[in-house]
Protein backbone atom coordinates (compact mmCIF):
# COMPACT_ATOMS: atom_id res chain seq x y z
CA UNK A 1 0.00 0.00 0.00
CA UNK A 2 1.44 3.33 -0.90
CA UNK A 3 0.96 6.40 1.24
CA UNK A 4 0.50 9.77 -0.35
CA UNK A 5 3.32 12.00 0.72
CA UNK A 6 2.33 15.11 -1.13
CA UNK A 7 0.42 16.93 1.61
CA UNK A 8 2.69 16.21 4.54
CA UNK A 9 4.27 19.09 6.46
CA UNK A 10 7.92 19.63 5.54
CA UNK A 11 9.36 17.93 8.63
CA UNK A 12 7.77 14.63 7.60
CA UNK A 13 9.12 14.81 4.10
CA UNK A 14 10.21 11.37 2.95
CA UNK A 15 13.84 11.49 1.94
CA UNK A 16 14.59 8.98 -0.76
CA UNK A 17 18.23 9.52 -1.54
CA UNK A 18 20.34 6.46 -0.82
CA UNK A 19 23.57 8.39 -0.53
CA UNK A 20 22.09 10.91 1.87
CA UNK A 21 23.67 10.36 5.27
CA UNK A 22 21.24 12.56 7.15
CA UNK A 23 18.82 10.99 9.52
CA UNK A 24 15.87 12.49 11.35
CA UNK A 25 15.25 11.27 14.85
CA UNK A 26 12.70 12.29 17.39
CA UNK A 27 14.01 12.94 20.85
CA UNK A 28 11.18 12.87 23.31
CA UNK A 29 8.45 13.49 24.30
CA UNK A 30 9.16 10.74 26.81
CA UNK A 31 12.88 11.30 26.94
CA UNK A 32 13.86 11.65 30.57
CA UNK A 33 16.28 14.48 30.04
CA UNK A 34 13.86 16.83 28.36
CA UNK A 35 12.53 17.79 31.80
CA UNK A 36 8.88 17.40 31.07
CA UNK A 37 7.34 16.55 27.79
CA UNK A 38 9.38 18.20 25.10
CA UNK A 39 10.00 16.66 21.72
CA UNK A 40 13.03 17.63 19.73
CA UNK A 41 13.19 16.75 16.13
CA UNK A 42 16.84 16.34 15.31
CA UNK A 43 18.34 16.03 11.88
CA UNK A 44 21.66 14.27 12.27
CA UNK A 45 24.65 13.86 10.09
CA UNK A 46 26.40 11.00 11.78
CA UNK A 47 26.48 12.18 15.36
CA UNK A 48 26.37 15.85 14.49
CA UNK A 49 23.24 17.92 14.76
CA UNK A 50 22.34 19.67 11.55
CA UNK A 51 18.97 20.94 12.55
CA UNK A 52 16.88 20.94 15.68
CA UNK A 53 13.20 21.78 15.89
CA UNK A 54 11.60 21.89 19.33
CA UNK A 55 8.03 20.65 19.35
CA UNK A 56 6.09 21.91 22.33
CA UNK A 57 2.50 21.89 23.52
CA UNK A 58 2.19 18.50 25.19
CA UNK A 59 1.40 20.14 28.51
CA UNK A 60 -0.88 22.81 27.14
CA UNK A 61 -3.67 23.45 29.61
CA UNK A 62 -5.05 26.76 28.41
CA UNK A 63 -4.00 28.66 31.52
CA UNK A 64 -4.00 32.08 29.94
CA UNK A 65 -7.57 31.59 28.77
CA UNK A 66 -8.56 30.25 32.16
CA UNK A 67 -7.56 33.51 33.83
CA UNK A 68 -10.35 35.26 31.94
CA UNK A 69 -12.96 33.09 33.63
CA UNK A 70 -11.65 33.44 37.15
CA UNK A 71 -11.80 36.32 39.56
CA UNK A 72 -8.52 38.11 40.10
CA UNK A 73 -7.81 36.41 43.41
CA UNK A 74 -8.60 33.00 41.94
CA UNK A 75 -5.98 33.53 39.25
CA UNK A 76 -3.21 33.16 41.81
CA UNK A 77 -3.73 29.40 42.04
CA UNK A 78 -3.32 29.10 38.28
CA UNK A 79 0.07 30.79 38.36
CA UNK A 80 1.36 28.15 40.80
CA UNK A 81 1.03 25.57 38.09
CA UNK A 82 2.98 27.33 35.36
CA UNK A 83 6.57 27.09 36.45
CA UNK A 84 6.06 24.51 39.15
CA UNK A 85 9.62 24.83 40.38
CA UNK A 86 9.22 28.52 41.08
CA UNK A 87 5.57 28.92 42.15
CA UNK A 88 6.19 31.76 44.57
CA UNK A 89 7.90 33.75 41.84
CA UNK A 90 4.88 33.24 39.60
CA UNK A 91 2.57 34.29 42.42
CA UNK A 92 4.64 37.40 42.91
CA UNK A 93 4.64 38.43 39.26
CA UNK A 94 0.89 38.02 39.03
CA UNK A 95 -0.11 39.70 42.27
CA UNK A 96 2.27 42.59 41.65
CA UNK A 97 0.74 43.16 38.24
CA UNK A 98 -2.75 43.29 39.74
CA UNK A 99 -1.52 45.50 42.56
CA UNK A 100 -0.06 47.86 40.00
CA UNK A 101 -3.47 48.13 38.34
CA UNK A 102 -5.12 48.76 41.67
CA UNK A 103 -2.42 51.12 42.89
CA UNK A 104 -2.05 49.25 46.17
CA UNK A 105 0.59 50.06 48.75
CA UNK A 106 2.10 46.90 50.28
CA UNK A 107 3.25 47.01 53.90
CA UNK A 108 6.92 46.71 54.66
CA UNK A 109 6.73 43.36 56.40
CA UNK A 110 4.81 41.75 53.57
CA UNK A 111 7.40 42.97 51.06
CA UNK A 112 10.26 41.60 53.13
CA UNK A 113 8.55 38.24 53.51
CA UNK A 114 7.94 38.15 49.79
CA UNK A 115 11.62 38.70 49.09
CA UNK A 116 12.59 36.12 51.68
CA UNK A 117 10.27 33.46 50.29
CA UNK A 118 11.10 34.21 46.66
CA UNK A 119 14.81 33.89 47.25
CA UNK A 120 14.35 30.59 49.06
CA UNK A 121 12.24 29.46 46.15
CA UNK A 122 14.98 30.50 43.76
CA UNK A 123 17.45 28.35 45.66
CA UNK A 124 14.99 25.45 45.57
CA UNK A 125 14.48 25.90 41.86
CA UNK A 126 18.21 26.02 41.19
CA UNK A 127 18.65 22.90 43.31
CA UNK A 128 16.26 20.95 41.13
CA UNK A 129 18.07 22.28 38.09
CA UNK A 130 21.43 21.28 39.53
CA UNK A 131 20.29 17.81 40.50
CA UNK A 132 18.66 17.01 37.19
CA UNK A 133 21.39 18.65 35.13
CA UNK A 134 24.03 16.56 36.86
CA UNK A 135 21.86 13.48 36.55
CA UNK A 136 21.54 14.01 32.81
CA UNK A 137 25.28 14.21 32.49
CA UNK A 138 25.74 11.10 34.58
CA UNK A 139 26.42 12.26 38.13
CA UNK A 140 23.73 10.71 40.23
CA UNK A 141 24.78 11.43 43.81
CA UNK A 142 24.35 15.19 43.54
CA UNK A 143 20.71 14.67 42.69
CA UNK A 144 19.95 13.16 46.09
CA UNK A 145 21.84 15.81 48.00
CA UNK A 146 20.08 18.56 46.06
CA UNK A 147 16.70 17.12 46.82
CA UNK A 148 17.57 16.81 50.47
CA UNK A 149 18.37 20.53 50.62
CA UNK A 150 15.28 21.37 48.60
CA UNK A 151 13.18 19.35 51.02
CA UNK A 152 14.25 21.69 53.81
CA UNK A 153 13.08 24.69 51.81
CA UNK A 154 9.82 23.01 50.84
CA UNK A 155 9.18 22.21 54.49
CA UNK A 156 9.52 25.89 55.30
CA UNK A 157 7.25 26.87 52.46
CA UNK A 158 4.78 24.27 53.67
CA UNK A 159 5.00 25.65 57.18
CA UNK A 160 4.20 29.15 55.94
CA UNK A 161 1.55 28.42 53.36
CA UNK A 162 0.33 24.85 53.73
CA UNK A 163 1.31 23.86 50.22
CA UNK A 164 4.59 22.45 49.06
CA UNK A 165 4.48 22.68 45.30
CA UNK A 166 1.50 24.97 45.01
CA UNK A 167 1.75 27.41 47.88
CA UNK A 168 -0.41 30.34 46.61
CA UNK A 169 1.13 32.21 49.50
CA UNK A 170 1.04 35.71 48.09
CA UNK A 171 -2.31 37.38 47.80
CA UNK A 172 -3.34 40.56 46.10
CA UNK A 173 -2.51 43.18 48.69
CA UNK A 174 -0.20 41.11 50.84
CA UNK A 175 0.13 37.56 52.05
CA UNK A 176 -2.20 34.71 52.81
CA UNK A 177 -1.23 34.95 56.47
CA UNK A 178 1.76 35.87 58.54
CA UNK A 179 4.71 33.55 58.97
CA UNK A 180 4.28 30.87 61.62
CA UNK A 181 6.00 31.23 64.96
CA UNK A 182 9.63 30.21 64.99
CA UNK A 183 10.07 30.71 61.27
CA UNK A 184 13.11 32.97 61.64
CA UNK A 185 14.82 30.28 63.65
CA UNK A 186 14.25 27.76 60.90
CA UNK A 187 15.49 30.18 58.26
CA UNK A 188 18.58 30.72 60.33
CA UNK A 189 19.12 27.00 60.68
CA UNK A 190 18.90 26.68 56.92
CA UNK A 191 21.17 29.60 56.10
CA UNK A 192 23.74 28.28 58.57
CA UNK A 193 23.83 24.85 57.01
CA UNK A 194 23.38 25.57 53.34
CA UNK A 195 26.90 26.92 52.55
CA UNK A 196 28.36 23.56 53.57
CA UNK A 197 26.00 21.79 51.18
CA UNK A 198 26.91 24.21 48.41
CA UNK A 199 30.60 23.48 49.00
CA UNK A 200 29.80 19.82 48.71
CA UNK A 201 28.16 20.33 45.34
CA UNK A 202 31.24 22.19 44.21
CA UNK A 203 33.46 19.34 45.39
CA UNK A 204 31.32 16.79 43.62
CA UNK A 205 30.85 18.61 40.34
CA UNK A 206 32.97 21.70 39.80
CA UNK A 207 36.17 19.78 40.42
CA UNK A 208 35.06 16.76 38.47
CA UNK A 209 36.92 16.37 35.19
CA UNK A 210 34.21 14.37 33.50
CA UNK A 211 31.69 17.07 34.30
CA UNK A 212 34.07 19.76 33.08
CA UNK A 213 34.77 17.96 29.84
CA UNK A 214 31.09 17.45 29.21
CA UNK A 215 30.22 21.11 29.79
CA UNK A 216 33.16 23.33 28.79
CA UNK A 217 32.95 24.66 25.27
CA UNK A 218 29.56 23.07 24.67
CA UNK A 219 26.42 24.93 23.64
CA UNK A 220 28.07 28.24 22.92
CA UNK A 221 25.92 31.31 22.45
CA UNK A 222 27.57 34.69 22.21
CA UNK A 223 26.34 37.70 24.12
CA UNK A 224 24.97 39.35 20.94
CA UNK A 225 23.13 36.23 19.91
CA UNK A 226 21.79 35.73 23.42
CA UNK A 227 20.39 39.25 23.44
CA UNK A 228 18.99 38.83 19.95
CA UNK A 229 17.20 35.66 20.96
CA UNK A 230 15.77 37.38 24.01
CA UNK A 231 17.41 35.07 26.51
CA UNK A 232 17.18 36.31 30.07
CA UNK A 233 18.19 35.18 33.50
CA UNK A 234 21.17 33.00 34.39
CA UNK A 235 21.42 31.76 30.80
CA UNK A 236 22.06 35.30 29.62
CA UNK A 237 24.43 36.08 32.46
CA UNK A 238 26.44 33.04 31.46
CA UNK A 239 27.17 34.92 28.26
CA UNK A 240 28.56 37.85 30.16
CA UNK A 241 25.60 40.22 30.12
CA UNK A 242 24.86 41.57 33.57
CA UNK A 243 21.12 41.98 33.26
CA UNK A 244 19.04 41.28 36.31
CA UNK A 245 15.61 42.79 36.85
CA UNK A 246 16.16 42.82 40.58
CA UNK A 247 18.86 45.39 39.84
CA UNK A 248 17.63 47.16 36.72
CA UNK A 249 13.95 47.51 37.71
CA UNK A 250 13.84 46.76 41.42
CA UNK A 251 10.53 45.63 42.86
CA UNK A 252 9.32 44.65 46.31
CA UNK A 253 12.23 46.50 47.91
CA UNK A 254 15.11 44.71 46.16
CA UNK A 255 16.92 48.02 45.85
CA UNK A 256 17.63 47.86 49.59
CA UNK A 257 19.44 44.54 49.51
CA UNK A 258 23.11 44.06 49.04
CA UNK A 259 23.90 41.34 46.53
CA UNK A 260 26.05 40.76 43.48
CA UNK A 261 24.95 39.69 40.05
CA UNK A 262 27.22 36.81 39.08
CA UNK A 263 28.29 36.77 35.46
CA UNK A 264 30.54 34.44 33.52
CA UNK A 265 32.09 34.99 30.12
CA UNK A 266 32.37 31.41 28.90
CA UNK A 267 29.05 31.51 26.97
CA UNK A 268 28.90 27.71 27.33
CA UNK A 269 27.13 25.17 29.53
CA UNK A 270 29.86 25.44 32.14
CA UNK A 271 29.43 29.21 32.39
CA UNK A 272 25.69 28.90 32.87
CA UNK A 273 26.33 26.24 35.49
CA UNK A 274 28.73 28.50 37.38
CA UNK A 275 26.33 31.45 37.24
CA UNK A 276 23.57 29.45 38.87
CA UNK A 277 25.89 27.99 41.48
CA UNK A 278 27.08 31.47 42.42
CA UNK A 279 23.54 32.79 42.30
CA UNK A 280 22.51 30.38 45.04
CA UNK A 281 25.15 31.91 47.30
CA UNK A 282 23.85 35.39 46.43
CA UNK A 283 20.26 34.37 47.12
CA UNK A 284 21.38 33.05 50.45
CA UNK A 285 22.82 36.49 51.21
CA UNK A 286 19.46 38.08 50.41
CA UNK A 287 17.61 35.53 52.54
CA UNK A 288 19.84 36.38 55.49
CA UNK A 289 19.33 40.12 55.03
CA UNK A 290 15.58 39.74 54.66
CA UNK A 291 15.35 37.53 57.74
CA UNK A 292 17.23 40.11 59.76
CA UNK A 293 14.87 42.86 58.64
CA UNK A 294 11.62 41.18 59.62
CA UNK A 295 9.99 43.74 61.87
CA UNK A 296 6.51 43.22 63.28
CA UNK A 297 3.76 44.83 61.32
CA UNK A 298 0.77 44.14 59.15
CA UNK A 299 1.10 41.72 56.23
CA UNK A 300 -1.96 42.92 54.35
CA UNK A 301 -2.56 46.24 52.69
CA UNK A 302 -5.13 48.59 54.12
CA UNK A 303 -7.74 48.17 51.40
CA UNK A 304 -10.96 46.74 52.84
CA UNK A 305 -12.54 46.38 49.42
CA UNK A 306 -9.74 44.23 48.03
CA UNK A 307 -8.09 42.42 50.89
CA UNK A 308 -10.00 39.88 52.97
CA UNK A 309 -10.50 41.20 56.50
CA UNK A 310 -8.92 39.72 59.57
CA UNK A 311 -10.82 36.60 60.64
CA UNK A 312 -11.62 37.89 64.11
CA UNK A 313 -12.85 41.19 62.73
CA UNK A 314 -14.94 39.34 60.19
CA UNK A 315 -16.75 37.45 62.92
CA UNK A 316 -17.37 40.44 65.14
CA UNK A 317 -17.80 43.43 62.86
CA UNK A 318 -20.70 43.75 60.49
CA UNK A 319 -18.91 45.87 57.89
CA UNK A 320 -15.95 43.51 57.80
CA UNK A 321 -18.34 40.62 57.28
CA UNK A 322 -20.03 42.44 54.41
CA UNK A 323 -16.68 43.13 52.76
CA UNK A 324 -15.70 39.51 53.26
CA UNK A 325 -18.89 38.30 51.58
CA UNK A 326 -18.53 40.73 48.71
CA UNK A 327 -14.89 39.94 47.99
CA UNK A 328 -15.41 36.18 48.11
CA UNK A 329 -18.70 36.04 46.26
CA UNK A 330 -18.36 38.87 43.76
CA UNK A 331 -14.67 39.63 43.65
CA UNK A 332 -13.38 43.18 43.61
CA UNK A 333 -13.46 45.77 40.94
CA UNK A 334 -10.21 46.50 39.13
CA UNK A 335 -10.07 49.72 37.13
CA UNK A 336 -9.76 49.43 33.39
CA UNK A 337 -6.26 49.58 32.00
CA UNK A 338 -3.27 47.56 30.92
CA UNK A 339 -0.25 46.63 32.92
CA UNK A 340 2.94 44.64 32.50
CA UNK A 341 5.02 43.68 35.44
CA UNK A 342 8.21 41.69 35.22
CA UNK A 343 10.21 40.07 37.97
CA UNK A 344 13.43 38.12 37.93
CA UNK A 345 12.21 34.57 38.16
CA UNK A 346 14.60 31.72 38.73
CA UNK A 347 14.87 31.23 34.98
CA UNK A 348 14.80 34.76 33.68
CA UNK A 349 12.40 37.59 33.09
CA UNK A 350 8.98 36.47 34.20
CA UNK A 351 6.44 39.03 33.11
CA UNK A 352 2.69 39.18 33.48
CA UNK A 353 0.56 41.34 31.25
CA UNK A 354 -2.99 42.04 32.32
CA UNK A 355 -5.67 43.96 30.50
CA UNK A 356 -8.67 44.94 32.51
CA UNK A 357 -11.93 46.37 31.30
CA UNK A 358 -13.20 46.91 34.82
CA UNK A 359 -15.02 44.30 36.83
CA UNK A 360 -13.84 41.32 38.82
CA UNK A 361 -12.25 39.32 36.03
CA UNK A 362 -9.41 40.26 33.71
CA UNK A 363 -10.17 40.49 30.02
CA UNK A 364 -6.75 39.16 29.02
CA UNK A 365 -3.74 37.79 30.85
CA UNK A 366 -0.55 36.98 29.10
CA UNK A 367 2.59 35.56 30.64
CA UNK A 368 6.04 36.10 29.28
CA UNK A 369 7.63 32.90 30.40
CA UNK A 370 11.42 32.83 30.49
CA UNK A 371 11.59 29.11 29.73
CA UNK A 372 9.69 29.56 26.51
CA UNK A 373 11.90 32.32 25.21
CA UNK A 374 15.08 30.61 26.34
CA UNK A 375 14.02 27.38 24.66
CA UNK A 376 13.62 29.17 21.36
CA UNK A 377 17.39 29.67 21.28
CA UNK A 378 18.06 25.97 21.73
CA UNK A 379 18.34 25.20 17.98
CA UNK A 380 20.98 27.90 17.74
CA UNK A 381 22.95 26.42 20.63
CA UNK A 382 22.86 22.78 19.57
CA UNK A 383 23.77 23.38 15.94
CA UNK A 384 26.92 21.45 15.12
CA UNK A 385 27.07 19.73 18.50
CA UNK A 386 27.00 16.02 19.23
CA UNK A 387 23.76 14.22 20.09
CA UNK A 388 24.99 13.45 23.60
CA UNK A 389 25.57 17.14 24.22
CA UNK A 390 21.95 18.01 23.56
CA UNK A 391 20.92 16.83 27.01
CA UNK A 392 23.67 18.91 28.60
CA UNK A 393 22.53 21.99 26.69
CA UNK A 394 18.85 21.48 27.51
CA UNK A 395 19.83 21.13 31.13
CA UNK A 396 21.87 24.31 31.01
CA UNK A 397 18.97 26.51 29.92
CA UNK A 398 16.82 25.18 32.76
CA UNK A 399 13.41 24.88 31.19
CA UNK A 400 10.14 23.90 32.79
CA UNK A 401 7.59 22.66 30.33
CA UNK A 402 4.64 23.64 32.47
CA UNK A 403 5.52 27.22 31.81
CA UNK A 404 6.39 26.81 28.16
CA UNK A 405 3.07 25.24 27.23
CA UNK A 406 0.90 26.94 29.84
Amino acid at each position, binding site marked *: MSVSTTNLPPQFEVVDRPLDTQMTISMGPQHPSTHGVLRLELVLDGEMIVKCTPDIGYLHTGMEKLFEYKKYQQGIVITDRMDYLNPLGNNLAYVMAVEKLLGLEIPERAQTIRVLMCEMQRIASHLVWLGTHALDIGAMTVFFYCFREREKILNMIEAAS*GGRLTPSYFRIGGLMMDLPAGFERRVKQFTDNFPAALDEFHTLLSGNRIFQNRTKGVGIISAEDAIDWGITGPSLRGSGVALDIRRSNPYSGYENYDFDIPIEHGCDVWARYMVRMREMAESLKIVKQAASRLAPGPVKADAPKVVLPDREAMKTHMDALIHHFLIV*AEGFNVPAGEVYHAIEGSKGELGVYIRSEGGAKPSRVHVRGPSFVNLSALPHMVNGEMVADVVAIIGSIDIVLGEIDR
Partner: protein
Amino acid sequence: MSIISDIVESTKSIIKGMSVTFSYIPKAKWTVQYPEEPVTLQPRYRGQHLLHVDELGREKCVACYLCAAACPSDCIYIVAADDPRAPEERTGVDERYAEVYNIDYGRCIFCGYCVEACPKDAITHGYNFELSVYNRADLLKTKDDLLITKQKQSPNYRVAFSDEDVDSEYKEV
Protein backbone atom coordinates in the same frame (compact mmCIF):
# COMPACT_ATOMS: atom_id res chain seq x y z
CA MET B 1 48.30 16.66 28.41
CA SER B 2 49.95 13.32 28.64
CA ILE B 3 48.00 10.18 29.39
CA ILE B 4 49.72 9.78 32.76
CA SER B 5 48.61 13.13 34.09
CA ASP B 6 45.18 12.45 32.62
CA ILE B 7 44.87 9.28 34.67
CA VAL B 8 46.26 10.92 37.79
CA GLU B 9 43.88 13.89 37.53
CA SER B 10 40.85 11.68 36.89
CA THR B 11 41.69 9.42 39.82
CA LYS B 12 42.07 12.47 42.03
CA SER B 13 38.66 13.83 41.16
CA ILE B 14 37.04 10.44 41.65
CA ILE B 15 38.64 10.10 45.07
CA LYS B 16 37.51 13.59 45.97
CA GLY B 17 33.94 12.84 44.91
CA MET B 18 33.80 9.47 46.61
CA SER B 19 35.14 10.93 49.85
CA VAL B 20 32.00 13.09 50.03
CA THR B 21 29.82 10.08 49.37
CA PHE B 22 31.55 7.92 51.95
CA SER B 23 31.41 10.67 54.56
CA TYR B 24 27.63 10.27 54.45
CA ILE B 25 27.58 6.66 55.54
CA PRO B 26 27.75 7.30 59.30
CA LYS B 27 25.56 10.41 59.20
CA ALA B 28 21.88 10.48 60.13
CA LYS B 29 19.60 9.85 57.18
CA TRP B 30 17.14 12.41 55.91
CA THR B 31 14.99 9.87 54.09
CA VAL B 32 11.68 8.92 55.68
CA GLN B 33 10.68 5.30 55.17
CA TYR B 34 7.11 6.08 54.26
CA PRO B 35 4.71 4.23 54.73
CA GLU B 36 6.52 2.24 57.41
CA GLU B 37 7.27 5.52 59.13
CA PRO B 38 4.77 8.37 59.16
CA VAL B 39 5.65 11.56 57.32
CA THR B 40 5.78 14.83 59.20
CA LEU B 41 3.36 17.49 58.06
CA GLN B 42 3.36 21.14 58.96
CA PRO B 43 0.38 22.48 60.93
CA ARG B 44 -0.86 24.51 57.99
CA TYR B 45 -0.69 21.59 55.57
CA ARG B 46 -3.67 21.47 53.24
CA GLY B 47 -5.03 17.94 53.11
CA GLN B 48 -8.49 16.47 52.75
CA HIS B 49 -11.16 18.74 54.15
CA LEU B 50 -12.92 18.32 57.46
CA LEU B 51 -16.44 19.55 58.14
CA HIS B 52 -16.64 20.57 61.75
CA VAL B 53 -19.27 20.13 64.40
CA ASP B 54 -19.90 22.04 67.64
CA GLU B 55 -19.88 20.67 71.21
CA LEU B 56 -23.33 19.16 70.77
CA GLY B 57 -22.30 17.38 67.61
CA ARG B 58 -24.25 19.70 65.32
CA GLU B 59 -22.72 20.63 62.01
CA LYS B 60 -21.35 24.15 61.93
CA CYS B 61 -22.09 24.70 58.26
CA VAL B 62 -25.00 27.03 57.55
CA ALA B 63 -25.03 26.44 53.78
CA CYS B 64 -24.13 29.98 52.85
CA TYR B 65 -22.41 28.86 49.63
CA LEU B 66 -19.43 31.14 50.22
CA CYS B 67 -16.94 28.29 49.95
CA ALA B 68 -18.49 27.22 46.67
CA ALA B 69 -18.23 30.79 45.38
CA ALA B 70 -14.59 31.07 46.43
CA CYS B 71 -13.54 27.75 44.94
CA PRO B 72 -11.42 28.30 41.81
CA SER B 73 -12.16 24.85 40.46
CA ASP B 74 -15.89 24.77 41.20
CA CYS B 75 -15.73 21.47 43.00
CA ILE B 76 -18.03 22.09 45.97
CA TYR B 77 -21.65 21.13 45.61
CA ILE B 78 -24.12 22.10 48.32
CA VAL B 79 -27.86 21.65 48.71
CA ALA B 80 -29.30 23.78 51.47
CA ALA B 81 -32.28 22.66 53.55
CA ASP B 82 -34.26 23.88 56.53
CA ASP B 83 -34.49 21.92 59.73
CA PRO B 84 -37.54 23.11 61.73
CA ARG B 85 -36.80 21.04 64.83
CA ALA B 86 -35.81 22.43 68.21
CA PRO B 87 -32.23 23.75 68.39
CA GLU B 88 -30.89 20.77 70.38
CA GLU B 89 -32.17 18.18 67.96
CA ARG B 90 -31.07 19.84 64.75
CA THR B 91 -28.47 18.51 62.37
CA GLY B 92 -26.77 21.88 62.18
CA VAL B 93 -26.20 24.76 64.55
CA ASP B 94 -28.59 26.88 62.55
CA GLU B 95 -31.97 26.15 61.12
CA ARG B 96 -30.45 26.20 57.67
CA TYR B 97 -27.94 23.47 57.01
CA ALA B 98 -26.30 21.67 54.13
CA GLU B 99 -28.30 18.59 53.31
CA VAL B 100 -25.75 17.63 50.69
CA TYR B 101 -22.14 18.71 50.84
CA ASN B 102 -19.93 17.16 48.20
CA ILE B 103 -16.37 17.89 47.25
CA ASP B 104 -15.09 16.45 44.03
CA TYR B 105 -11.48 15.52 44.68
CA GLY B 106 -10.97 14.93 41.02
CA ARG B 107 -11.12 18.70 40.68
CA CYS B 108 -10.00 20.06 44.04
CA ILE B 109 -6.58 21.65 43.94
CA PHE B 110 -6.15 22.08 47.71
CA CYS B 111 -5.79 25.83 47.50
CA GLY B 112 -7.46 26.62 50.80
CA TYR B 113 -9.78 29.28 49.42
CA CYS B 114 -12.87 27.54 50.81
CA VAL B 115 -11.35 27.49 54.26
CA GLU B 116 -10.47 31.14 54.01
CA ALA B 117 -13.98 31.99 52.83
CA CYS B 118 -16.02 30.12 55.41
CA PRO B 119 -17.39 32.63 57.95
CA LYS B 120 -18.34 29.88 60.41
CA ASP B 121 -15.09 27.91 60.54
CA ALA B 122 -17.17 24.99 59.37
CA ILE B 123 -14.64 23.69 56.88
CA THR B 124 -10.91 23.33 57.39
CA HIS B 125 -8.18 21.35 55.79
CA GLY B 126 -7.38 18.13 57.55
CA TYR B 127 -4.15 16.23 57.08
CA ASN B 128 -5.27 13.15 55.19
CA PHE B 129 -3.38 13.10 51.94
CA GLU B 130 -3.69 9.55 50.65
CA LEU B 131 -6.61 10.08 48.36
CA SER B 132 -5.90 7.81 45.44
CA VAL B 133 -8.70 5.47 44.44
CA TYR B 134 -9.20 2.85 41.77
CA ASN B 135 -12.39 4.34 40.44
CA ARG B 136 -12.78 7.95 39.44
CA ALA B 137 -16.27 8.15 40.85
CA ASP B 138 -14.88 7.42 44.31
CA LEU B 139 -13.14 10.77 44.27
CA LEU B 140 -16.46 12.43 44.93
CA LYS B 141 -16.58 12.70 48.69
CA THR B 142 -19.84 13.32 50.49
CA LYS B 143 -20.65 14.50 53.98
CA ASP B 144 -20.12 10.95 55.23
CA ASP B 145 -16.47 11.14 54.23
CA LEU B 146 -15.87 14.73 55.21
CA LEU B 147 -17.48 15.17 58.63
CA ILE B 148 -14.88 15.24 61.36
CA THR B 149 -16.88 12.69 63.29
CA LYS B 150 -16.79 10.24 60.41
CA GLN B 151 -13.54 10.78 58.54
CA LYS B 152 -10.94 8.17 59.32
CA GLN B 153 -7.50 9.67 59.89
CA SER B 154 -4.58 7.95 58.28
CA PRO B 155 -1.86 6.62 60.61
CA ASN B 156 0.76 7.65 58.06
CA TYR B 157 1.27 11.23 59.13
CA ARG B 158 2.02 13.26 62.16
CA VAL B 159 1.93 16.99 62.53
CA ALA B 160 4.92 19.04 63.60
CA PHE B 161 4.72 21.77 66.17
CA SER B 162 4.90 25.01 64.30
CA ASP B 163 7.52 26.64 66.50
CA GLU B 164 9.53 23.51 67.07
CA ASP B 165 11.95 21.88 64.75
CA VAL B 166 10.33 19.90 62.01
CA ASP B 167 11.95 16.62 62.96
CA SER B 168 12.16 16.80 66.71
CA GLU B 169 8.70 17.01 68.17
CA TYR B 170 5.25 16.06 67.08
CA LYS B 171 1.80 16.64 68.33
CA GLU B 172 -1.05 14.20 68.41
CA VAL B 173 -3.92 15.02 66.10
